[in-house]
Structure formats: structure tokens, C-alpha cells
């Protein structure tokens, strides 16, 4: 029933490598705006405004976070050796990410259980710290993956900052889409400095790559494919700002999302044909045997589209700004 002697299609390993990056991009963008919401949250101290932000965050964060699990489980299924080396090689950053996600996830839920101000202050702090630490740790891992620079290497640190910046931009756009009144106006205004900061981290990343040339990534940056991806990565958030200035907030969020996709595409073009350059493993070296990959294609493949359908339902149900009655978590 499942062909065991060859891949269903000759390019199946590359297709799954691309799918893996797609899951990563979905995560970086979707949970990115959750993280960014946590950063916007830190700038507000009005209780009603915080409740609005939490009501925007509540219904979607859990679903968004599953894209990280999708990335992890697709990685172990399709490229087990990369999964093992990448995660064990960035041990502390992975646990930093997991602990940050844990803190961020429970803080919103715990907060609403008691209205003692001291309790809420603790929960708020957890929420904000988790929202900043998670994208930073994710960037450390991604930097180590692409540039082989470990957890504390400069390229990894700058990648960490870039993901914090990206999340901040996405968070301001999402906050502007989901809120009303002063909060919405301030989120729109915050988009400009956030985008400037994000572009600054991208510039720092390019400078680091050119100066240090980790694993030859600095040189390859100017090949046509990475260059195009890099140009889109920089251009799309700027286009987004122009859209935001015309009050087209949904289009702004989309263009930030496509910008996040371009950043991951840049990662992919810098990696390929390697799956994990630091270990010398190419996509073809590391990919699972035909029977496993064919099975993954036939069983998980269709569900990938079903899952995208779930997200259409989710974001249709929770489209538009948060209603007055929805302030609060679990309301």
C-alpha cells in the first residue's frame, strides 16, 4: 500500500523540507503577533486596555503555538538526525523557549482567577517576560541552525533580536486590528518605531554575516535567491507601514506576515542544500527513508490542508475588534 522502494515523487525530500520551513514561518508570524501583543501589553497600565489585549490574545494563542509543535514533529518525522542534533545542540535555548512559552501561556489564565493587584502584577510580569524571552530564544536556535554559531555566537544573538523585533511589529499590527479607541491609535503609532527597530536588527544581521561570514552564509547572501528573499524581508514591513498610514490595518498585518515568510525563505535559501550546515548534513543525507516519507505524505499531507481550514474558521469567528462584552479572559 505504501511504496517502500522510492519516493512518491523524486523531489519529495525537498517538498518536505519546504513544508517544514512553512510550519516554521507560520509559527514565527502567528505566535509572533502573540508575543508582540505581550510587548504592547507592557506599554499599557490601564486595566480595561489590558483586558482588551488579553481578549484578543486568549482565543488564538494556543492554536498558534501548535505550529511550533508541527515544526518539531515534522522535523523528527522527516529529518530525525537534524531534529536530534539541532535540539540537543541548543539545549539551554530550547529549554529557555519552552519555559518562556509556559510562563506566557499560563500567565493570562492565572491572572483572571484572582483580582488581587499583587497577584495580577506577578502574572503580568510573567506574561511580558515570556513574550520577550520566547522569540529571543527561538532566534538563538534559528541562528545556531543556519549559521552554526551556537547559543552565544554573535549571529545567533542578532537573530534573536531580529525575531523579537519582528514579533513587536506583528504585535502592534495585530493590536491595532483587534482594539478600539486610544489603544488602537497608539498601536498604530507604535508601528513606526517598532518597524524601525526591526529593520535595525536586520541591518545588524546583514552586517554580522558580511563581517564574520559564518559557514559562508555572508557570501551566499548575495546570490540571487537569498538576495531576493532578503529584499522582500526588508521591503514588506515598510510597505506595511505605508498601508497602516492609510488605516488599512488588515493589509498591514498581512504584509508583516508575508515579511515573516520572506525571512524564513531567506533562512531556507541560506541553508539549502544543507538541512543543518554545522553538521554537514544535506537534505538528502538527513531525510527519512522512502517508506516513512511516503507515509507522512499520504497521511499527514491532506491534514495540512484541513488544518489550514481550521485556521480560516478560527480567524473568521474571531475577526474584527474585540467586543465590549469580551473584555477579560474566558469571558
Amino acid at each position, binding site marked *: 500500500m505504501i511504496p517502500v522502494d522510492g519516493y512518491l515523487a523524486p523531489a519529495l525530500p525537498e517538498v518536505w523540507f519546504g513544508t517544514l520551513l512553512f510550519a516554521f514561518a507560520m509559527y514565527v508570524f502567528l505566535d509572533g503577533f502573540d508575543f508582540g501583543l505581550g510587548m504592547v501589553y507592557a506599554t499599557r497600565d490601564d486595566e480595561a486596555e489590558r483586558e482588551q489585549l488579553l481578549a484578543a490574545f486568549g482565543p488564538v494563542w494556543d*492554536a498558534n503555538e501548535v505550529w511550533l509543535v508541527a515544526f518539531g514533529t515534522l522535523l523528527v518525522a522527516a529529518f530525525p538526525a537534524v531534529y536530534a542534533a539541532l535540539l540537543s545542540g541548543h539545549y539551554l535555548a530550547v529549554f529557555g523557549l519552552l519555559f518562556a512559552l509556559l510562563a506566557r501561556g499560563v500567565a493570562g489564565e492565572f491572572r483572571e482567577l484572582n483580582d488581587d493587584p499583587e497577584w495580577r502584577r506577578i502574572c503580568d510580569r510573567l506574561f511580558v517576560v515570556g513574550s520577550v524571552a520566547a522569540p529571543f530564544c527561538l532566534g538563538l536556535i534559528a541562528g545556531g541552525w543556519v549559521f552554526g554559531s551556537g547559543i552565544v555566537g554573535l549571529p545567533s544573538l542578532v537573530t534573536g533580536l531580529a525575531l523579537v523585533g519582528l514579533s513587536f511589529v506583528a504585535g502592534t499590527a495585530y493590536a491595532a486590528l483587534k482594539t478600539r479607541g486610544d489603544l488602537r491609535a497608539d498601536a498604530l503609532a507604535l508601528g513606526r518605531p517598532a518597524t524601525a527597530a526591526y529593520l535595525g536588527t536586520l541591518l545588524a544581521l546583514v552586517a554580522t554575516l558580511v563581517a564574520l561570514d559564518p559557514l559562508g552564509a555572508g557570501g551566499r547572501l548575495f546570490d540571487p535567491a537569498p538576495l531576493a528573499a532578503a529584499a522582500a524581508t526588508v521591503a514588506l514591513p515598510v510597505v506595511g507601514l505605508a498601508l497602516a498610514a492609510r488605516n488599512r490595518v488588515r493589509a498591514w498585518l498581512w504584509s508583516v506576515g508575508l515579511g515573516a515568510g520572506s525571512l524564513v525563505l531567506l533562512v531556507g535559501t541560506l541553508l539549502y542544500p544543507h538541512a543543518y550546515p554545522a553538521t554537514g548534513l544535506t537534505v538528502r543525507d538527513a531525510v527519512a527513508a522512502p517508506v*516513512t516519507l511516503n*507515509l507522512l505524505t499520504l497521511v499527514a499531507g491532506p491534514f495540512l490542508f484541513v488544518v489550514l481550514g481550521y485556521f480560516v474558521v478560527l480567524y473568521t469567528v474571531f475577526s474584527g475588534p474585540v467586543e465590549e462584552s469580551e473584555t477579560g479572559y474566558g469571558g
Partner: protein
Amino acid sequence: MFALGFVLGTVTGIPLSFQFGTNFAAFSTFAGEVIGGPLAFETFMAFFLEAVFLGILLFGRDRVSDRLYVGSSVLVMAGAWASAFWILVVNAWMQTPRGYELVERGGETLVRLTDPVAAFTTPRLPWLYVHMTNAAVVSVSLLIAGVAAYFVWANEESEPWAHALRVSVAVLAVAGVFQVIHGDAYTRHVVQTQPMKFAAMEAAYQTKQGAPLHLIAFPRNLGDILDPRAENLVSVSIPYMASMLASMGDPNAVVYGLEEFDVESPPVAVVFWSFRTMVTLGFWFILLGVWGVYRLRKGRLATRSRHLQLLWLSTPLGFVAIVVGWYVTEVGRQPWTIQDLLKTDAAVSPSVTGIEAALSLGGFITLYLLLLAGFLAGCKWLVDEELERIDEATAGAVAEPDVTPDPTEPVPDSGGDGP
């Protein structure tokens, strides 16, 4: 409480998808081609389903039709049960592996899938799936019964909680009895497929015909606590009983002892006591359930009684039983990570240092204790709030007797809905 439990389940479940890689890199490289598929299927068939529709279930009441709302609750349940299925496919394969071959790749030996159907439906799977899902039913019916008992104890007039108590006690009785009968048969399957695990469960060192069942047992020598020798055991035992249980009735059946196996033994005390704790709790749940059904038939279930008191004191014990049950399964399989195929000391990440492992373990212990404390505090606040609410509701009903059937009182639908 459902929402709180679900969020904690999510945030503590996500690390699992990564710990195979962080801490068991050698295992992931070795067996990734077999276990990766089911893990990915779990994500795409179950995890997304749960997470997306939980959002709608908890936050979407005013935004969706009744039909989509009810549908979401069913989908969350379907996702949870499918999730248990795929994760247990992986665990069952690690207990009774098949459908694979060993191949050389890049100088390393690893497992390659040869027959996915055989690998994903191993002999252990039906035992594990039925035992685990029914354990979940037992634990949650006890949780609901315990909370309901607490409220009924506090206020006997609260009809919704009396109703919850009746339903949950009946479910507890049926599922509790089934769990013990099924567990007995499951143990015989373990005798056949993992005799060394059974030897550890029974602290049997020497192979014997007519082996006794130790109710309790301690080694004379403290140094043997994790690896007891039978001749040094102080025990209270039922003669022939272990043989009878292992063979379905033959008092002279052979029970293989740990001495038969030429690999190091699992830490016997952990397995032995975990097993006894689980079984004792299993019988305790039957007692609570059957006693409850008896009182229900007498029409006295929802009145203050010793039974109600014991019920609410036992609220968390279902979860204790699940945890010690997993200790039996996982510690009992040591030294193997994959039975007869990969030992645990060969499964861990070679590059991870002791300091890193200690840091992450310390982090987990600290965070999970904080989560537990937060969860318990949260439950207490929710219970206190509800207590005030039902006191007000019933006080109102007493003051105005002609409005006793309170229309604002929702009929509990036995599923957990959001706060």
C-alpha cells in the same frame, strides 16, 4: 477548572515534542523514522483540532451558532482522544516493538520502518489505550464527584451539584470496576511480553513455581532497596497468589524472577510500590463508586455523610493513580528505552552535559511545582466563588419558595464547559 486544566495540559505537553530531541538525541536518531510519523500525525490530526476549537469553546460563545459551539466541544474531545491514541502508538511500539528492521546509515545503526501497520498496531496498543483512556474517565469522574461532594456537603440544597454527584458516582462505579478487571488481564499480557517488568512489579528475584504475592515487602539490607534479593525479603504475602494471578488460576505456574535476565534490573522498589499504590487506589475508587451507587439507590447520596467526606478528600487521587501507573510502565521497562532494542544509557543525548541536564531538570521541577501550586490555588478560588454563588442562589430560593425551580440554574451537561 476545565479551562485551567486544559491550559496547563497544553503548556506542559508542548515540551514533550522537543524533549525527545534535547535529552534523547540518540534515541531520536535511532528510532525517528518509526516514532516521528505518529508524532506528526498527532499534531496534525489531534493537537491542532483541540487547540483551535478550544479557543472557540472558551471564548466564542457569543460569536458562533449553537451548532458550531456544540460541535466545537465535540471536536475538542475528539482531538483529545485522537491525541492519546497517537502518543500511545509511540509508547506501545517502545514496549513491544515490531514492523521494523535494523539498517546501517552513515556508520550508525538505526531502525527502519518495514511494515507501518504492524508497527503502529503493536500487541501493547489496545491494552495501553483502553487502560489509559478508562483511567482518564475514572480520574475525571472522581474529580467531578469530589468537587460535587464538597459543594453538596457545604449546601445540600444545591440541585445542580447533587445531579453532578449522581452522574459522576455512577460513572465512577462502572469505570472503576472495569479498570481493575481490565488491569488484571493487562498484567497477564505484561507477564507474557515483558516478564522482567512483571518480576520487578512483584519483587520476584528467584524464579519460582507457586510464587506468593507480596502485599508488602522490604529488603533486610537497606543497600538492596532498589534491587532486592528474595532471600532477604521481609514480607507479608499470600501464598501461590502471584502464580495464580499471572496464569489466570494455576497456583503452581512459574513466575520468572529477575535472576533470569542477564541485563541489570529496574529499580525494584519504585516499580513494586508504584504498582501497589495504583492497585490499592483502583480498589478504593471501586469502593467509593459502589458505596455511592448504593446510597444513590437508597436516596441518600446527596446528604451529608462519611461517604461525601471521603469522596471530596479523594478528589485528586485519580491523577496520583495515573502517575504511579506510568511509573510502573516506564520505570519497569528499564534498562530499556525500546524493549530489547535500545538501552536508556545509549538513548540519551551524547552532547548534553551534566550541568545542562541538571539546570533543565531543576527548572522543570521548580516550574511544575509552581504550576501545581497555581493550579490548586486557582481551583480553590473557583470553588470559593461557586460556594458563594450557590449559597446566594439557594438562600434566594428559600426566601421566595414559589420560585424554587430556578430557571437561571443551568443543567450540568457532564462535559466540562468554560468558566
